[in-house]
């Protein structure tokens, strides 16, 4: 059986199926790998048509070797996501060139199933899932073609069969998904590849850095609040804190672990759950300022929440914050010195202005107020496309262009403070967000990225000052799109699309639910979910028992349903009468053999000693007339048959 040559139609089917499975992956593959795919498929199809001969082994084997080396040269490894995909693709393509037997075709189909799995290392979104189902149907249809063993089968027919198979599998899949006990991973080392999106906050800030990010409408994270949503102007999502300044660029200092902190809080705690999209970094976003510690993460002395591992997959965490707070009164002198320092050789005019402010005003608070007043009263503009700046960027911005984005205002403000002798630093993160009124949660996009400052004031500690608010109050109170209504393409669903707003909110809710229920369904979520169902599934063994019982119940009901639908057709009334006759005769010891038809049976029993045999002939004659005669099956004839059989003694 295993030597059987594959049929022509199945070769085409497998080629198509591979092409279908590999298509969405082309953009992750080097060009030469895509070329090999195209070459192998074209060759195999022409070979199938009889236009080409099979590629000889002495060409094929070196090609396999060269391709292996090629993958290694491309990635300097053969494991990991990208290299693994390239290797799998190349080897599958070359397998096509030496596939002659039915067995080879089946192996190729199995490899296509494997290819689907590689998609998920790149994306796990709803569209990817839909694509997976489509691909699954195509691959299964191919498997059916091979097993159908017919020369020509209509593709529509195949797709129908395979869709039925896939659809019937869905209930079982859901049961397995919910109930198979999840094991916390990883089992072996993961290669340190970035598996998520690449847009997001950065670990440094220079003019133009954030305004680039603003142009992306990708979702950064979504937040479900336990209580009411705080006011928009209070939604400062704290991210990387930058203390180091080289005259142009702000960057982070090495992390200072939080040893001891005095945190004075006021106001009620605000509980919420963040579903963070992968950002490839370690920082977690929290509302200013976080007051809860979570597993696998820690707070720095800058009150920044840091995860122990990079966020390469969707990450969900429960957090608690207080909006009224006071911290950092006991900041170390060494750190404060850093927070006052700046390179003297850059931005001389700004430094001079700062120094003059220090002379003019007495307290730090007055200096802050003076600078904010300057931003408010003089001609400063909030814009996404500020003019390019040279090496004395802050000077140029403050005294010439006066057009800038949040990083310009925060950066120049912090430098002025430092020049005036007030410790200051930059905090980056997100500000605001869009409330999804359909799903009751907040969507925070990359376009909500923001930078503000913190200044250190004696007896008050670190105090948040947002200079952007002084220039453009709308940015903080109503959001970016209002502040820059004529400059950015609006990302807010509300303003972008008032007609389909609800629909788009619904779509985002669906994605949020997908993240929450599908992508985040791990060991913890499973335990909590099953416990909250309150049906007595508390541990591992309960899950297995429930799993087996449910699987049996579902397959059993499928079985019963198909048995019912495919039951043999009900016998006609005359057949039932005939069976009654046979039963009556059986009581006299006369049995019809299965091989006899009614007439030969009649002939045989006529010879036997049976007193009512004269009556049998008309009955059987009538039976045959009903059964075979044209229009024989009338009510009259059936009644006649019944009364004739009734007349027989039993």
């Amino acid at each position, binding site marked *: 059986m295993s030597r059987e040559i594959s049929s022509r139609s199945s070769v085409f089917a497998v080629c198509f199926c591979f092409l279908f499975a590999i298509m969405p992956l082309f953009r992750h593959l080097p060009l030469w790998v895509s070329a090999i795919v195209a070459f192998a498929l074209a060759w195999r199809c022409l070979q199938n048509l009889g236009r080409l001969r099979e590629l000889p082994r002495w060409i094929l084997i070196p090609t396999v070797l060269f391709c292996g080396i090629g993958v290694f040269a491309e990635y300097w490894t053969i494991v990991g996501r990208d290299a693994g995909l390239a290797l799998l693709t190349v080897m599958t393509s070359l397998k096509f060139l030496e596939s002659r037997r039915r067995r080879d075709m089946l192996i190729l189909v199995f490899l296509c199933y494997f290819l689907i799995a590689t998609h*998920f290392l790149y994306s796990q979104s709803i569209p990817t899932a839909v694509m997976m189902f489509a691909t699954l149907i195509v691959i299964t249809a191919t498997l059916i073609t091979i*097993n159908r*063993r017919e020369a020509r089968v209509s593709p529509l027919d195949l797709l129908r069969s395979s869709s039925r198979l896939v659809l019937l*599998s*869905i209930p079982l899949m859901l049961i397995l998904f919910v109930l198979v006990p999840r094991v916390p*991973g990883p*089992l072996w080392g993961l290669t340190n590849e970035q598996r998520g999106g690449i847009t997001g906050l950065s670990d440094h800030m220079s003019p133009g850095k954030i305004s680039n990010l603003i142009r992306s409408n990708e979702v950064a994270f979504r937040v479900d609040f336990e209580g009411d949503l705080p006011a928009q102007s209070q939604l400062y999502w704290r991210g990387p804190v930058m203390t180091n300044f080289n005259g142009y660029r702000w960057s982070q200092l090495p992390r200072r672990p939080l040893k001891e902190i005095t945190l004075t809080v006021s106001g009620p705690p605000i509980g919420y759950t963040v579903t963070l999209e992968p950002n490839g970094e370690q920082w977690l976003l929290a509302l200013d300022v976080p007051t809860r510690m979570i597993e696998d993460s820690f707070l720095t002395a800058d009150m920044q929440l840091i995860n122990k591992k990079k966020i390469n997959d969707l990450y969900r965490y429960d957090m608690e914050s207080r909006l009224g707070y006071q911290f950092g009164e006991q900041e170390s002198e060494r750190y404060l010195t850093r927070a006052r320092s700046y390179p003297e050789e850059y931005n001389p005019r700004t430094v001079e202005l700062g120094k003059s402010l220090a002379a003019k005003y007495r307290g730090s608070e007055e200096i802050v107020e003076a600078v904010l007043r300057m931003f408010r009263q003089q001609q400063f503009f909030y814009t996404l496309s500020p003019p390019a700046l040279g090496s004395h960027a802050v000077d140029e911005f403050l005294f010439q262009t006066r057009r800038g984005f949040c990083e310009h205002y925060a950066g120049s403000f912090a430098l002025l403070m430092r020049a005036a002798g007030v410790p200051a630093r930059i905090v980056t993160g997100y500000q605001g967000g869009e409330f999804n009124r359909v799903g009751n949660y907040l969507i925070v996009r990359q376009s909500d990225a923001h930078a503000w400052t913190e200044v250190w004031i004696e007896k008050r500690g670190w105090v948040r000052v947002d200079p952007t608010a002084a220039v453009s109050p709308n940015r903080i109170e109503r959001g970016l799109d209002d502040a820059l209504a004529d400059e950015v393409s609006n990302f807010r669903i509300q303003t972008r699309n008032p007609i389909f707003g609800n629909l788009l909110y619904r779509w985002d809710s669906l994605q949020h639910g997908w993240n929450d229920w599908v992508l985040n369904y791990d060991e913890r979520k499973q335990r909590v979910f099953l416990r909250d169902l309150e049906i007595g599934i508390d541990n591992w063994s309960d899950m297995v028992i429930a799993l087996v019982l449910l699987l049996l119940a579902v*397959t059993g009901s499928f079985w019963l349903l198909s048995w019912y639908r*495919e*039951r043999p057709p009900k016998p006609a009334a005359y057949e039932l009468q005939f069976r009654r006759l046979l039963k009556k005769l059986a009581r006299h010891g006369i049995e019809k053999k299965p091989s006899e038809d009614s007439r030969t049976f009649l002939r045989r029993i006529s010879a036997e000693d049976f007193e009512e045999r004269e009556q049998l002939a008309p009955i059987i004659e009538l039976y045959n007339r009903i059964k075979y005669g044209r229009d024989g099956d009338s009510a009259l004839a059936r009644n006649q048959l019944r009364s004739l059989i009734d007349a027989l003694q039993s």
Partner: protein
Amino acid sequence: MISLSLPGPVRRYFDHWFDAHNPPSQDSILLHNRRLYILPTGFGYLFAVMMLFLFLAAINYQNSMAFMLTFMLTSLAIISLWQTHKNLLGISVKLQIPRPVFCGEMCELEFEVSHPNNSERFAIGIQYQDQPPVYLKLEPEGSTLAKLKLPTARRGLYKPAGITVFTRYPTGLFHAWGWLRFDLPILVYPHPADDARLQQSMVEQFDGQTSTSTIEGDDFAGLREHRVGESLRHISWKAYAQGRGLLTKTFQGHARPSLWIDWELMTRGSVEERLSLMTALVLAAENEEQKYGLRLPGKVIEQGYGSSHKHSCLQTLALYRQTDAEEELPVAGD
């Protein structure tokens, strides 16, 4: 039937169990639940290994969609287990009474496969041991004839063993099958020897006095092909005029020669060779339209002529010294 070498008692128990669940049938075999077996194919096992790999990868990457795919494919396998079984369930197979065959020729078995249900059945195979199977498809409530060719290696009466009706549809991950055991034995005649001729020396005791020729006689019997050397007088010119070629008129003589095909006259060879020779002689005699009888040690068939006589002679030869008349058909080359 079961080619495993099992210890005696286990094997007997197994055989008994097998016979009880798969009784041989004279009529048709209905594949119901207890007659159907299902096991994963080699690809089924490969698929299982693949699922294990996917599952481990899903755990490692904590990738929910990879979990979903693994579970999806596992469910697909479970569903296809059921569908494969369902594809065969309720089918009945009927073996048409097999025609006798000469040893060495292929014996053609004709199965009528049908089902009363309202569904199509695909890729139903019928296979004899490891010979290439034949595949068929059934329409709803349909029936199809399938011809299976079996090699024959020994004369005798055989019930073919190891014929299965099976399916792997739709995914090829499972192999569902039922055993086709029919109470309809195949009669295998001895192989007719190639070099056997009806010769004077072999043909003993002419019943009549003289005539060996059938060309001269009283009653016209028919036409046969003209042989070189025969008198032109006996050619049917009428037939020739009709373009049927040269045909010789034959006549039924009163003094029709009759002959005995006698075991004792076969001077050479083993039992099988002699039987083989005698088989050829029966066929030759039948062909020559001569009356013949059969003499075997302990068995005599009176002289006769015609198809049924030929068959009873050949059957006697086929079953000669076969103690166990109903054996299982051995594998070719056995």
